[in-house]
């Protein structure tokens, strides 16, 4: 015979308990358990090699300290980006000149076989140039950035970053694990959206999904680094130039994190209300990574993967852009027509029609936004050979770019809608058209609002 649990009485009991409960019960309970464990260990565990035991603890006391945790993170980020910017310039220029040199021979070849102009335009000016630019501006920073990042990861520093960030996310009403999914977003937002499965609570998981896009992914790092080095540090030279460039990129990343936290906080107070749940994060011991192994793997896995993706998507996009830029309706091209149509709105955001169009056509992958933009500009007749970063800047300047255009493009890139792959993943994970739409519309509105604000502010103060 079974007596069923007296449900209403149990619920009654629960309410009774709740009335008694002090606010920080869980903390008190956990603290008592921890204290007991510690006391037991003090009695029963002895160490014959003290120094060895405390290595990790000693380092953790520094890396995760309340005082030093954040400054160290900031310095690490700045150093990584500084090395990336400083190291990428020369190989970028070398690659660009190399591709320019090859283009000369390609041109000769097409002339020798008497190829029609449209074929030469399509293949060399559209496809080849676009791809060449992508490779020369994207490969060097990636080949430096990813291995350094992987070294930090394998050394065991990244889990400490998550540990530090945990406090902030909890204050924002989100789950501490969101710091992990955010960290993953620095690599790829689409993968990070899948990784939010580690968060059990649907509410907190949705927060993590909706805000993941605000940190730059693989596809957007090169854009940020390139634009920052071309425009933000223009009046500086030498080491200062690199320093300013890196600072701007770091500021972008920090701004992205601030937006992530703010949006999480606002959502957790409104549409996704609730209290954050607890979790345990195991910090692995620090170990010296296998340096060459890590570098090799990061280069092969990440850099080549991203580059391949960029080229595979960029090549057809280059062709399409070139075609759109060379088919005339009346006396304007389709591309110019579209760009002109978008221009008034884009100008209000401190961008231009071509930039906005590049973002729209770049929906499938963030990697191709910059290439599409370049191809769009190139197709307007200002034919610039691929021969170095200076001429790259010239293309932008010829199209009326200022530092504000670069800043706003960086901001828009940082904040705008997630790429197509990410949106597909969001739909798969949430099974909801409504939330997928929110994941698209929310960042887009923020991107528009922020760039509009910056543009108008700059105009108001007359600093452009």
């Amino acid at each position, binding site marked *: *015979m*079974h*007596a*069923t*649990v*007296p*449900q209403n*009485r*149990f*619920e*009654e*009991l*629960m309410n*009774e*308990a*709740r009335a*008694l*409960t*002090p606010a920080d*019960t*869980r903390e*008190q*309970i956990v*603290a*008592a*358990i*921890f204290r*007991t*464990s*510690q006391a*037991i*260990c003090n*009695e*029963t*565990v*002895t*160490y*014959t*090699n003290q120094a*060895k*035991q405390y290595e990790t603890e000693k380092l953790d006391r520094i890396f995760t300290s309340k005082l030093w945790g954040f400054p160290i993170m900031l310095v690490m980020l700045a150093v990584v980006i500084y090395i990336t910017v400083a190291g990428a310039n020369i190989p970028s220029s070398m690659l660009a000149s190399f591709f320019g040199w090859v283009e000369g021979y390609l041109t000769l070849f097409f002339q020798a076989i008497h190829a029609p102009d449209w074929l030469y335009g399509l293949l060399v000016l559209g496809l080849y140039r676009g791809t060449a630019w992508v490779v020369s501006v994207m490969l060097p920073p990636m080949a430096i950035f990813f291995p350094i990042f992987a070294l930090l990861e394998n050394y065991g520093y990244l889990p400490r970053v998550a540990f530090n960030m945990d406090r902030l996310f909890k204050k924002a009403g989100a789950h501490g694990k969101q710091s992990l999914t955010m960290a993953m977003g620095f690599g790829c937002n689409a993968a990070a959206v899948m990784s939010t499965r580690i968060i*059990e609570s649907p509410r907190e998981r949705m927060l993590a999904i909706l805000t993941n896009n605000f940190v730059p992914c693989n596809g957007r790092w090169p854009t940020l680094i390139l634009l920052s080095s071309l425009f933000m540090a223009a009046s500086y030279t030498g080491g200062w130039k690199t320093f300013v460039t890196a600072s701007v990129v770091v500021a972008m990343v920090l701004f992205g994190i601030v937006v992530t936290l703010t949006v999480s906080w606002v959502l957790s107070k409104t549409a996704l209300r609730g209290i954050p*749940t*607890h*979790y*345990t994060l*195991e910090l692995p011991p620090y170990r010296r990574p296998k340096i060459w192994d890590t570098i090799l793997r990061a280069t092969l896995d990440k850099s080549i993967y991203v580059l391949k993706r960029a080229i595979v998507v960029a090549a057809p996009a280059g062709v399409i852009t070139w075609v759109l830029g060379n088919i005339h309706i009346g006396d304007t091209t389709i591309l110019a027509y579209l760009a002109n149509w978008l221009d008034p709105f884009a100008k209000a955001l401190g961008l231009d029609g071509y930039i906005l169009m590049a973002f729209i056509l770049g929906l499938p992958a963030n990697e191709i936004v910059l290439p599409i933009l370049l191809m769009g500009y190139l197709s307007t007749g200002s034919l610039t050979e691929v021969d170095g970063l200076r001429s790259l800047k010239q293309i932008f300047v010829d199209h009326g770019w200022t530092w504000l255009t670069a800043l706003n493009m960086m901001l828009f890139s940082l904040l705008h809608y997630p790429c197509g792959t990410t949106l597909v993943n969001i739909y798969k994970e949430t099974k909801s058209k409504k939330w997928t739409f929110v994941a698209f519309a929310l960042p887009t509105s923020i991107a528009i609002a922020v760039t509009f604000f910056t543009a108008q502010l700059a105009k108001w103060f007359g600093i452009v």
Partner: protein
Amino acid sequence: MAMNEYTIALAGNPNTGKSTLFNVLTGLRQHTGNWPGKTVVHAEGFFTYNNNRYRMIDLPGTYSLYSNSADEEVARDFIIFEKPDITIVVLDATALERNLNLALQVLEMTSNVIVCVNLMDEAKKKGIRIDTKKLAATLGVPVIPISARNKEGIDTLLKTIDSMVLGKIKTNPITVRYSPEIEQCIEKLIPRVKEVIGDAYPARWVALRLLDGDMSLLRAFQQQPLPSVKEVSIYACHGPAKSI
């Protein structure tokens, strides 16, 4: 003579060699699947020792049993509702302090506990010495140092299991002392808990969970038919455990 069957639950933090021990004890006699209605892997295996048959459940590896996740709920519900005859808690000797947190939580839920301190070989290499006798005295339950992957200490473990099911071992689990504020609340609640759900569940632990506002436990209790006191004793000795 018919063999008695006993149920053993295996609890522990992730990466403590819990599954290694599970494999050493049960060999190939294992079934894996999912816990009913949950996407949590359920593994059970069988072994016999000294004319007794044992059914062993490898609970999901967790850091706590505070129902933060489906894993933790599964582990908690098994210990509370299925009442295994023995719960073995596997601890990592190289991180004893952190691992003890889980052991202390299990000891609040049941007194039929054996603590296995695994990875003793690795701890030795790192210069960590653990006084397991003292640990056993403090915790109030048997503590067996083992190295599952080297199959060291398994014999002692099996003998201890045998003694425990035969009632030759008397345990006296440590009670974690909470802040005076919490202790006062517990004291008030315990008589009420006993009144509502009887003696079938550890009253102090239930009181703590109530204070913690653990809604998932409320749901678990609502799904659970409460066995009458008489049935509990039969259940614990012979009854094949039902799934939750």
